[in-house]
């Protein structure tokens, strides 16, 4: 059986939408992660700093990239991933995930640029990931 082909530079990942996340979802994330920063849970505090609603934990959104990448190419595993938190996604908003392959080689793996967009034009998260073929998946 031949090994699965690597994606090509320029390939775009299918877009996906996550959320919206309600107050209960933010509380559950706070409980499981230990990140109980009240900014994510307290409407009044969010308003004090000029936000219409509490922002979703950036790490919660960022972590969704793993399943997004796995849905695209289950034969590839995340070796490293990073994200810069640029804009808030507020409670009740959805986020759109997208990505594009920048480089791919059997030696260095697949390098993907990732984006999470909330309602703003500017991305909420700009990320990058290096993926490698899962053992047993060939290549």
């Amino acid at each position, binding site marked *: 059986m031949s090994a699965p082909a690597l994606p090509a530079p320029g390939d775009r990942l299918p877009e996906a939408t996550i959320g919206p996340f309600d107050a209960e979802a933010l509380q559950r994330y706070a409980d*499981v*992660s*230990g990140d109980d920063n009240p900014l994510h849970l307290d409407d009044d505090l969010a308003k004090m700093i*000029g936000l219409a609603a509490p922002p979703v934990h*950036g*790490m919660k959104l*960022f*972590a969704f990239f793993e399943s997004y990448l796995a849905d695209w190419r289950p034969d590839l595993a995340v070796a490293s991933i990073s994200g810069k938190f640029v804009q808030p996604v507020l409670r009740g908003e959805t986020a759109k995930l997208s990505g594009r392959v920048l480089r791919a080689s059997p030696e260095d793996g697949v390098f993907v640029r990732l984006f999470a967009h909330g309602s703003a034009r500017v991305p909420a998260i700009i990320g990058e990931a290096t993926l490698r073929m899962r053992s047993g998946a060939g290549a």
Partner: protein
Amino acid sequence: MPSEPVPPPPLRVHVDPERAAAYARETGYRGAGVPFAYPAVWLSAKAVRDAIAKVCEDAEAVPVHESQTFSYMAPLRFDEEYDLAVAFRSEETPPRLILDATVATLAGEPIARIETMLRIVPRAGLAGAAASLSGASS
């Protein structure tokens, strides 16, 4: 420049299968392994949080999560214990506190490197920074 806290001694951490499953549910992960972002739960340990809080208290500031990186040499395994070592460094312009964490097996085999970059935002300037508060995490 923010002060650099004294790093806590290495922390013995554990991949709790129930907590990992709950973390997976809350982050959309449907795979069979440990979610790559799961070590975030270890970084909320009291020793780490207290060190960050002290820096912020001294600077009359709050931490804003600016960026996050996970690099894996090997996957985490359920119900395994690991040693988590956290080091701190700071940058002056703009003020940042950076956590460099390493996860290793109890035999010392490196498993993962984690970088957490926190922007140290003066409380007085917090409202103006709201537009970039996506990851405003403690």
